[in-house]
């Protein structure tokens, strides 16, 4: 150790570096939000939300993409929520300790780290081509389900694990079957946590552009989809589409689309946090 004042100086340098590092993140976030807000706000009005894409920037809107996103996310929720709960219940309440269970554990953890574009190609090869569903909403939702399922299972397992063991033992002692314990004791206790995790996973799905591009490509959708077998586009693809157009007005439309996307995400995250806070207090006792 050299003299004391140089050690003090090093300490101050580390603290300063830490403050700078945190500030970079904060300032980046502010710049990112302001960049989109300032570019997009002039285009954001009721007409933008209720119009179809157009060659003329001031008439273009996001309606088909908005509907596409609602369809895809709605179906994804319908598929992934029960599947995620079932898988998590099996792994926590039923699974025997053997190689197959270990394989499933390892596999789910690894799947959560696979890039989303790989899921897009899986969906393209499996649902669109092999099963001949076509480049339609259903194929998009099935792909999205596979993409977010690992995340839902992981968070659902954590909620299930946090249910005290005594609850289960009490019910078993009264003669309840495994399914009765799982469905009537464990699930109600773990439900808010599972719901929060699912909403957060779905909000990730809403923002995903890459896998949806693999499925839907650059469909020029001039109608609002009315069935799962319609072709579609989603908000992130529409934004990407506008960014790629040469005229600067379309970039500003992209920014308006970004604002819509961020507002949707903000609402979903607020709901998730609300559910978490509401039920957390009760869980403490």
């Amino acid at each position: 150790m050299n003299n004391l004042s140089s050690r003090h100086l090093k300490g101050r340098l580390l603290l300063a570096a830490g403050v700078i590092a945190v500030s970079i993140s904060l300032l980046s976030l502010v710049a990112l939000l302001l960049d989109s807000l300032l570019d997009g706000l002039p285009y954001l009005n009721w007409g933008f939300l209720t119009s179809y894409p157009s060659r003329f920037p001031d008439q273009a809107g996001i309606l088909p993409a908005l509907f596409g996103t609602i369809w895809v996310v709605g179906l994804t929720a319908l598929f992934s929520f029960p599947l995620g709960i079932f898988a998590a219940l099996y792994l926590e309440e039923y699974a025997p300790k053997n190689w197959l269970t270990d394989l499933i554990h390892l596999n789910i953890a690894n799947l959560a780290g696979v890039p989303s574009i790989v899921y897009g190609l899986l969906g393209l090869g499996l649902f669109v081509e092999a099963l001949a569903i076509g480049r339609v909403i259903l194929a998009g939702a099935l792909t999205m389900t596979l993409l977010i399922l690992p995340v839902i299972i992981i968070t659902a397992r954590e909620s299930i694990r946090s249910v005290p063991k005594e609850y289960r033992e009490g019910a078993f002692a009264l003669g309840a079957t495994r399914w009765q314990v799982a469905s009537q004791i464990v699930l109600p206790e773990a439900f808010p946590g599972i719901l929060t995790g699912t909403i957060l996973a779905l909000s990730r799905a809403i923002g995903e552009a890459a896998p949806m591009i693999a499925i839907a490509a650059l469909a020029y959708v001039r109608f609002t989809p009315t069935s799962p077998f319609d072709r579609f586009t989603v908000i992130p693809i529409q934004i990407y589409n506008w960014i790629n157009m040469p005229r600067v007005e379309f970039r500003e439309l992209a920014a308006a689309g970004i604002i819509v996307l961020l507002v949707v995400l903000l609402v979903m995250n607020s709901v998730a946090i609300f559910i978490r806070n509401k039920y957390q207090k009760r869980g403490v006792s």
Partner: protein
Amino acid sequence: MKNRAGEKKRAQKIRESLIEKALFASAALSVLTTLGILGIFLFEAFGFFKEVSIIEFLTGTLWTPLFEPKHFGILPLVAGTLMVTIISIAVAVPIGLLTAIFLSEYASDRLRRLVKPVLEVLAGIPTVVYGYFALTYVTPILQQMFPQMIVFNALSAGLVMGIMIIPMVSSLSEDAMVAVPNSLREGAYALGSQKHEVALKIVLPSALSGIIASIILAISRAVGETMIVSIAAGSTPKLTLNPLESIQTMTGYITQISLGEAPFGSIEYNTIFAVGLTLFVMVVIINTLGNWLTKKYWRSY
């Protein structure tokens, strides 16, 4: 009477076992997903490797599948991916680690409760938004610094991707640092260490396995990131070391071809699966390496 009770019990038993099978099927779906990825990718890539030799694919230095003369060497795409990844890691690791040290060793509870949600927001923003930010905000600033730089370039995409993965490095590393027991810190203080010495010489090495895991995860995320590079890095596959040039990554190529709806069975269609398979294998190797390193350096307290 006894018979009816027995029947009821038997029915319940059947129901229980059916339910268990259904639950098991849901859990096994994940394994099927992996097999599906492997099966589909190998099948489609097989069509590709019938026409192009694996040697040419893995060692060729020209990637021109869309125009004559066609060349199918993936190295330019791999090089583009690596360049953007290196830039983003060079941004995210120092900033993320300093953030983690600051939050776990220096910040007050109140400040931590303020900063962490902001980082979570940063992690939750869709990548297409980061792409827009790179193209319309960061690139013009960089162009003022490097006037010869063109609009689509690796540097801008890499920098913004780095910002995107800061939260991944910082939150996992911070978790690892917070888990270091206070007795270690107190021991060091008792020997006359100062705060920064405790942070850098005690906490950092003790949390090493978590820190390595976070960096590996960040690398794997950067390699697979798609929208930022599709928007801001350009679409010219090229072997270059100059980050100011337009390049193309593996993910960027997949997006470019996907947008055009290449017909099933065409060579373009098969290329995206060959490139996707390469990407998948790379990510699996990185993740496995991460798990192995984490285990190797794992210390439990």
